[in-house]
């Protein structure tokens, strides 16, 4: 499926001016046309990934990519690993659980060690906001943020934007409701930045205990009533509710959360009839989202998001290593 929204290459500045960043730390550093540049690049990889048996493109052959995950992850790690391998790179995964981080080594020392191994790109996830930036400042290779604390998760926002663009034909001028634990969510922060930057109306729907302070300063409107918040929305984006938030400190119970903020078929009637349902996964079925909604093939984009994730990450790895590979115009 090709989309009418892909811009011709001539619309972008030539060479590296189309995306002038060494790292991908957050959406906060990007301009709208840089986001759209990555999305267009990703479209190409969607086609390749769907093209039957031969899904290989060896442009990153000989390059080493280290996935350093200081926080547990299955989906994002797998997605980055597949993206790197489809591009022909040698991909190495480092899990914090098996590393010297457990032995008290500082983050900077770990980063310097990885740097000394001459990686050509690093993909980093860490539980602390700002940790990826800290590492990026110390190493010689491009760094991709795969999630740092509650701060940013830029590839998730890019893949969400790509999914919306492919499903609805555009990712501007839409009404998008982001619902759930916004306070602790890096996915929400990156999506708010990306979607407002692209010219959408973004709403936050969350209980007051899970709404970040001064969030309206990020150009969103906040709702505590789910029915009101998703009224006439084009996109309903659900967030995962971590189990430890349901124990009484932030919310009385899972069932109360479901009653007030769960996405049920009935509640979904408030949104536009063609509204799509998104979730970054993994889902708590029956808590933030009902199975019948999550599994509706017409409206739920949840598996498509996973598919777009691989394509977007391939695009990011390709773009950020162009300088290293000596592509003309990228330095």
């Amino acid at each position, binding site marked *: 499926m090709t989309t009418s929204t892909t811009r011709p290459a001539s619309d972008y500045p030539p060479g590296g001016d189309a995306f002038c960043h060494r790292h991908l730390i957050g959406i906060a550093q990007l301009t709208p046309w840089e986001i759209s540049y990555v999305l267009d690049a990703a479209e190409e990889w969607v086609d390749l990934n769907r093209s039957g048996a031969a899904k290989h493109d060896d442009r990153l052959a000989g390059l080493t990519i280290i996935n350093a995950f200081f926080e547990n992850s299955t989906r994002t790690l797998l997605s980055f690993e597949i993206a790197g391998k489809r591009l022909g790179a040698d991909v190495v995964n480092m899990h914090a659980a098996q590393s010297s981080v457990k032995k008290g080594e500082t983050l900077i020392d770990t980063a310097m060690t990885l740097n000394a191994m001459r990686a050509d790109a690093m993909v980093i996830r860490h539980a*602390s*906001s*700002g940790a990826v930036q800290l590492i990026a400042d110390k190493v010689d290779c491009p760094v991709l943020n795969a999630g740092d*604390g*509650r*701060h940013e998760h830029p590839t998730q926002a890019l893949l969400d934007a790509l999914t919306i663009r492919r499903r609805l034909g555009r990712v501007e001028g839409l009404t998008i409701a982001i619902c759930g634990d916004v306070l602790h969510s890096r996915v929400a*922060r990156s999506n708010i930045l990306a979607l407002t930057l692209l010219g959408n109306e973004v709403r936050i729907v969350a209980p007051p205990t899970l709404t970040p302070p*001064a969030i309206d*300063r*990020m150009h969103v409107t906040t709702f505590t009533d789910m029915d009101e918040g998703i009224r006439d929305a084009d996109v309903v984006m659900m967030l995962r509710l971590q189990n430890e938030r349901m124990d009484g400190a932030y919310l009385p119970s899972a069932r109360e959360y479901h009653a007030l903020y769960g996405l049920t078929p009935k509640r979904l009637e408030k949104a536009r009839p063609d509204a799509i349902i998104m979730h970054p996964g993994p889902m708590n079925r029956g808590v933030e989202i009902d199975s019948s909604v999550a599994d509706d093939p017409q409206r739920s984009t949840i598996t498509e998001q996973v598919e777009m994730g691989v394509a977007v990450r391939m695009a990011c790895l390709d773009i950020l290593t162009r300088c290293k590979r000596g592509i003309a115009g990228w330095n």
Partner: protein
Amino acid sequence: MELKPLLITNALLVDGDTPRPGSLLVTDGRIAAIDPTDIPDGTETVDARGQWLAPGIIDLGVFATDKPAFHFGGITRAALMPDNGPLDGAGLVERAAKGGKPDLWIHPLAAATKGLAGKELAEIGLMKQAGARAIATGRARIADSGAMRRVLSYAASLGLVTIIHAEDEGLTAGAVATDGEMATRLGLASAPAVAEAIAIARDLALVEETGAPVHFRQVTTARGLDLIRAAKAKGLPVRCGITPAHLFLSDTAIGDFRTFARLSPPLRSEDDRQACLAAVADGTIDVLSSGHDPRGPEDKRLPFAEALPGMAGAETLLALGLGLIRDGHISPGRLFELLAGTPACLLGVDAGALAVGKEADLILVDDGTPWQVDAKKMAAYAGNTPFDGMPVQGRATAMWKGGSRVR
């Protein structure tokens, strides 16, 4: 060794609102005369060349005995917070008090409770005999209101001021920043600024109940300052202080996750910063101190939330204070009340002013020379200053402790 009398001439004396030309005579380590007419034989004369002659700075509430930094900053006396140790026994206090000898006064602040745990009374009386000049709750407040009430009345009976850190621990648990756009954009756990006012309100109620004198070491929010203002109007024995960080920086300084700007209490909103400046100008804030807390890369070169709070402030205290004069907030005389006069009062030491009979802890201040704060070239044993790179003006050029030249 007998001290020769000392005459400092051609100075601008900071003993009133504006510095005035004059000279000052020191004999036996004390100020003997201002603008003297009889000069004893064998007097050593120092020409101040028109620089300010001011009382040495008394830095109320530092976390380390960092002599090079204090000497650079014109600090002749430092009141040491009890956290390192903690200073909860007479022996520890006695040893801490000796930590500055011979060329710096260290006045230990005794831990209010055993182990600073906020439960049982520490041996405040014995620590006073060993040299403690006041007591302090440390980096946190005493959460238990009953324990706090007992601490206040007990310290008051011994004539000691209680120095308080005011933040409600329920609201600030886990937080590393103040609620606001900055913390939200960075994804940092934050606490509402009102955590300070809530803590202050409780302790003011206890002060009213016990009559005990207290000093809130750092008050950094508009609401907290309003409470202090009202308490003073009622005549309660309350003082409060601040560091230059909360006067010159707002929470935008934590952008890019700069851990040198991770402080306790955290940097506040711009509105609160303006309220702090107003409170310095109107006299609500009584003390300006450095909060000197040097921390090396092992504590600071970490993700923001994992880094420890604190700043190396001793070297920049005077220059930033002079900035308050230049910006039109206060007069020179008032600056040295904030830096020396009121701290001396709170600690009960006979210094902190240019007056006959006071101990001759003196500094010469060149109030104009520009220099740039550089975290890599600090005298302190760590350069964790949130003012790195900032151009400032003015520094101490000479220093005497008890009439003998330190530098």
